[in-house]
């Protein structure tokens, strides 16, 4: 009981003394805050990007690409292959007995960012008649659907927000082609909102693509039917194709970027954490040095070295916790919901929102406390070992 009251008395003295070294303490807390902000910005980015990509995919839609093409942009399918897919097992048929599939052409066009004025690659997707129906939660939020056979564009809401000149009613030029924006759509924040959509035959003819398509999206009777379609394709020598669920496709596309962001974020934050640890060590050593005579006096009175150890460690942890909370709060204020565009699949822009979750913020706080723990440990050991006689002689 005497040890507990000693420790609590010394801890409260340490905490109260933080104000006496106001600026070093503030700079230590801010260094921790900065590390936490950097880490959380990367984690929020990775998380938001992942959410955007994951949300786009359905497990009962099959994406068919040329074998080994990995991304839509590199894929290409022949007219025969498209027909054979339509005849494949597990593909949903409409009232007329036609397969519910959308042949799609995926091109890259230029856009100019609103905030920076820089050029960026944007995806233009020519979709078949069934294409719109294959996107969950599609809502035309302004204007109307493009008319078949017309030079008309539908623009994704996120793309419209980030890039200039795509308001409904405006005319835009891509190379030699001219288009009218007739509507804007949402798909619940998924990656499709970063695209332009137009009628497939129009895109094919204006961009001189003949009858070429890159991918086919097929509505399947069930998620399991995707595997049937794949088996069917594998057994037919005319079909050298990759068949994956849309879900799996986007997860795969996202994982590269997500990993990159997360793998960049942690090392950068940890490298910065070393700097913050050095700062914390410095602050805490100076705290111990400036309190040497006080600690020696307590020891002379009969206090043990352990309370001095705990007091110094807690002081460091308190500074780190303050910094961690400031950092997490700042990250939340600055980044949560922040809209950004980054290179996504096929080097086109994907617009997404940073998403900070409590679990991610906890990561930041833990990193902050680790900085406080490491930065406080050695100074705390020094505090516990201050020799009484020499400490009392200190001025």
């Amino acid at each position, binding site marked *: 009981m005497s040890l507990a*009251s000693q420790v609590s008395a010394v801890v409260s003295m340490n905490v109260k003394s933080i104000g006496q070294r106001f600026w070093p303490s503030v700079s230590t807390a801010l260094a921790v805050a900065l590390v936490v902000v950097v880490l959380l910005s990367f984690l929020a980015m990775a998380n938001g990007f992942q959410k955007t990509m994951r949300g786009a995919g359905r497990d009962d839609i099959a994406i068919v690409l040329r074998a080994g093409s990995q991304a839509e942009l590199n894929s290409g399918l022949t007219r025969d292959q498209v027909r054979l897919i339509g005849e494949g097992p597990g593909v949903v048929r409409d009232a007329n007995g036609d397969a519910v599939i959308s042949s799609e052409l995926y091109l890259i066009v230029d856009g100019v960012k609103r905030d920076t004025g820089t050029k960026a690659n944007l995806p233009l997707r020519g979709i078949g008649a069934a294409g719109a129906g294959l996107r969950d939660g599609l809502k035309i939020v302004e204007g109307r659907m493009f008319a078949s056979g017309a030079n008309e564009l539908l623009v994704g809401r996120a793309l419209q927000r980030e890039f200039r000149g795509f308001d409904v009613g405006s005319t835009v030029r891509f190379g030699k082609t001219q288009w009218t924006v007739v509507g804007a759509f949402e798909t619940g924040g998924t990656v499709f909102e970063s695209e332009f959509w137009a009628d497939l035959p129009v895109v094919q003819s204006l961009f001189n693509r003949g009858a070429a398509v890159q991918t086919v999206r097929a509505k399947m009777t069930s998620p399991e039917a995707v595997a049937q379609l794949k088996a069917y394709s594998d057994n037919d020598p005319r079909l050298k194709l990759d068949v994956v669920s849309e879900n799996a496709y986007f997860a795969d596309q996202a994982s590269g970027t997500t990993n990159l962001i997360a793998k960049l974020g942690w090392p950068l934050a940890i490298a910065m954490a070393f700097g913050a640890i050095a700062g914390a060590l410095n602050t805490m050593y100076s705290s111990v040095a400036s309190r040497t005579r006080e600690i020696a006096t307590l020891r002379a009175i009969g206090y043990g070295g352990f309370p001095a150890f705990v007091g110094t460690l807690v002081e460091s942890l308190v500074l780190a916790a303050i910094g961690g909370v400031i950092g997490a709060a700042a990250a939340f204020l600055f980044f949560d919901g922040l809209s950004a565009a980054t290179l996504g699949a096929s080097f086109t822009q994907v617009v997404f929102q940073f998403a900070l979750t409590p679990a991610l913020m906890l990561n930041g706080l833990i990193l902050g406390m680790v900085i406080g723990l490491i930065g406080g440990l050695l100074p705390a050991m020094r505090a516990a070992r201050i020799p009484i006689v020499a400490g009392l002689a200190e001025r």
Partner: protein
Amino acid sequence: MSDTLIRLAGVEKSFVKGKEKISIFEHLDMTIPRGDFVAIMGPSGSGKTTLLNLLGGIDSPTAGEIQFAGERIDSHSERQLSKWRSDHVGFIFQFYNLMPMLNAAQNVELPLLLKPLSASQRKNNVAAALEVVSLSDRAKHFPREMSGGQQQRVAIARAIVSDPQMLLCDEPTGDLDRTVADEILGVLQLLNRELGKTIVMVTHDPAAARYAKRTLHLDKGKFVEREELAA
């Protein structure tokens, strides 16, 4: 005088600095009776502070015996010494050594946190100690809000709050002007006369030494007669 409180017998204290051995005391004998008020004078570097540190159990002799109330403390472990100090010794320093972030009452309470006392018992003892040094009205004041003399009185209250038998004072008026020094010395004298505290006080001020019952002169690690020192 009554019984002996402190006895030093053949105390040696030396430091090894590099290859050299520096002796502060080679063979020191000393007896302090219970209830004594002894002033220790001597030139700077003569070992006065070292002697107080040995008496207070914050330093240990290289050889020899130190007895307190018949009990040898020179062989105590560091942990035992901590406990022994909290029971028997009050320290008073030249620069008061108060905790700047604590108010007067909180500073005085520090030694009581080592004792199995309730919060209300601690509060009573703190109030009583502040009363003795006439600082009851400054209980909530912080060191920076008090004069040097007031701070030293807080330090005295802290030294007596757990009722130790012995007070060790290292130049307690070294940082104070004459009038304030006299007040502080008056308080020490009162503690010695009224409360029976045994006081060992290091000072370089002859006027301060006159408040003590007797004065010992230390020079080059030995007690000397005053005439010898003058010669």
